[in-house]
């Protein structure tokens, strides 16, 4: 049934459909509505679940770690500074191979203080060893949340579902919420074979000397690489039940023979689809949606970029002193291609700045430059910057 639901409320309903047993969270804008909605579902008796209202994001992540290690399906959510405060625990959850799901309501990192959307928070966590899936709209946020539990539990890896704060979390969209029967048929009850249990006591979190550390990292790395198949399969299987796909690891939309492509991640994809319709005279353009940032689908990306002469990478975060984060990864993945497209890398929409439709012609114009743009912030207004800082 299709309802107009706010993004946060829709994600909360999707989480509830997955029958979580322990939820722990600490409030932070713009994630707060998700856990508020879950608290209401519990208060109304619609969800049987232990909700632990902790004193920090650090403890939120630690509580769900302990709960999932004890065999309970667990959920948490955060954003921005909260994700950064969790950092040490996020690495630990991944290293211990604890399956759980976290929603990151993407938000900029201070300083300067900002409460608005960009993707600096989750991008800063890309090396933590989590699976990271980005949502283009709220329907994808719902479907990805449900898929995330199956991916996490089959691969014994934690999954971070990233949805743009405010742009998605605080926006009403028509959402097709699946039924409990649909979710139950897709997601079996959680069984963790390494669960803490006095009848078969195991030690989790050993000290590992140099003699074994490389092997532990090897296993973790390869588990993430293998999870690519799990992510693709979950999307296909869920499509059979729901009739909807989220685009697997990476998906492409546009005419076969287009020589220009724009790759992006998250909710800006919607702007790009609309802009392409708005400006049909600007030529054939493939729009490439990167859904899985970790594991990074290098080979699949080479496949969707075949035949392109220009590839524009648009992202909502940057590595200061380096440049684009997604851009650098895309460039590294495509450098073996023969012929490889020229790559133009832009950040825009930082700290909640609007990305209007006119960004589309601006990107296509920039791609005509004789020299490809290695990296630039597209929508920077230098009149607001002191002369000596320009």
């Amino acid at each position, binding site marked *: 049934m299709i309802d107009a639901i706010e993004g946060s409320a829709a994600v909360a309903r999707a989480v509830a459909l997955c029958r979580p047993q322990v939820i722990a969270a600490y409030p932070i804008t713009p994630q707060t509505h998700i856990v508020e909605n879950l608290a209401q579902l519990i208060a109304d008796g619609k969800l049987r679940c232990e909700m632990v209202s902790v004193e920090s994001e650090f403890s939120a992540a630690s509580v769900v*770690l302990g709960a999932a290690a004890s065999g*309970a399906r667990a959920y948490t959510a955060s954003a921005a500074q909260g994700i950064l405060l969790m950092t040490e625990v996020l690495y630990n959850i991944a290293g211990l191979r604890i399956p759980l799901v976290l929603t990151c309501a993407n938000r900029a990192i201070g300083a300067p203080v900002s409460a608005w959307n960009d993707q600096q928070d989750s991008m800063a966590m890309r090396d933590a060893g989590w699976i990271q899936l980005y949502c283009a709209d709220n329907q994808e946020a719902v479907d990805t949340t449900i898929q995330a539990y199956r991916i996490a539990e089959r691969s014994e890896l934690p999954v971070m579902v990233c949805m743009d704060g405010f742009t998605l979390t605080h926006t009403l969209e028509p959402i097709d919420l699946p039924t409990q029967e649909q979710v139950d048929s897709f997601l079996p009850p959680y069984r963790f074979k390494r669960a803490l249990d*006095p009848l078969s006591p195991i030690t989790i979190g050993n000290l590992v000397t140099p003699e074994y550390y490389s092997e532990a990292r090897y296993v973790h790395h390869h588990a993430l690489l293998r999870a690519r198949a799990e992510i693709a399969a979950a999307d296909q299987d869920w499509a059979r039940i729901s009739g909807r796909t989220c685009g697997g690891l990476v998906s492409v939309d546009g005419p076969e023979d287009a020589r220009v492509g724009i790759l992006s991640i998250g909710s800006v994809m919607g702007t790009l689809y609309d802009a392409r319709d708005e400006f049909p005279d600007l030529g054939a353009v493939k729009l490439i949606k990167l859904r899985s940032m970790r594991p990074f689908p290098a080979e699949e990306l080479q496949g969707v970029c075949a035949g392109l002469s220009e590839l524009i990478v648009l992202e909502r975060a940057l590595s200061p002193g380096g440049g684009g984060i997604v851009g650098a990864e895309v460039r590294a993945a495509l450098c073996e291609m023969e012929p490889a497209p020229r790559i133009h890398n832009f950040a825009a929409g930082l700290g909640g700045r609007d990305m209007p439709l006119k960004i589309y012609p601006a990107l296509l114009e920039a791609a005509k430059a004789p020299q490809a743009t290695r990296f630039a912030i597209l929508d920077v207004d230098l009149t607001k910057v002191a002369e000596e800082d320009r």
Partner: protein
Amino acid sequence: MASDFDHESIAELQRKQPAFRGLDAGHMACPGCGQALGARLVTEAIGPDVIIANATGCLEVFTSAWPRSSWRVPWIHSLFENAPAVASGIEAALKVQGRPTKVVALGGDGGTFDIGLQALSGMLERNHNVLYVCFDNEAYMNTGVQRSSSTPHAAMTTTSPRGKQRMGKRHLKKDLLSIIGAHHIPYAATATVAYPSDLRAKVRRGLEIEGAAFVLVHSPCPLGWDHDGALSIEVARLAVQTGLFPLIEMERGTVVSAMHIRSVRPVVDYLKLQGRFRHLFEDAPEAREELQHLQQIANHNLELYALRSDQPEALDSESADTARRGGLRWS
């Protein structure tokens, strides 16, 4: 979810409890390690039906080097500062699953007094049904004897050394039990490895009570305190008998009992056995001043908790765990 776990087998395990040892032999602790002894006594008192969340520290390092483990109970180590939160999550999971298994968190004074204090406060405030045991060896021993907020005033550590202008640690040992008491949790106590029956009784009490419980276990460290490993018990006992480490119990933040001291010893008897206080016995006015100060701290404890007693008692500081004197042993 309760059907997933075989309660009959758990009952069988519990019948074996007196012989059960949660922390087995073969670990890598130093000879005379108070924490290793403390962990053994605590896990013996708990029995097999438990899940342990352990903070980073000596106990974690000397028991869990891959591919070996000294733990016979399910045990998880996550980080230095989050053992109380991990334990909270385990407890929440068990509650949903309907499993009666006990949850215990273990940490050192670094993980408890300092870096993990916020998570501990959260766990206590939410009154999770978890017993938190802190093995207090009064410094960061795992990283090479650096001062913690639990290090006693004037003790030498590698970050509070004796120098021309310093007499060891400049600050007082944090009064953690008062902080714990301020959370008004059902049960909190101090104990020591020198009095095993008292320690076991307090651990059992903490487990029986519904809600959060806390036990602080004074645990000598021959390496960090610089004393003979053979004297660990003697040193720990003197900490009690001088009044420097009072053994008390609190219910809902109120002191309800204290182990009485029949013959109070001067603090120098405790201090002179340990190299970390060696500089206090130099012929210098500042050394004499610090000795006096430490004696005053002990005197304050004796008054505050009314620790002195003239009448022999089965569980006073001289009788407990001494069969020869007619006291209770291995109760």
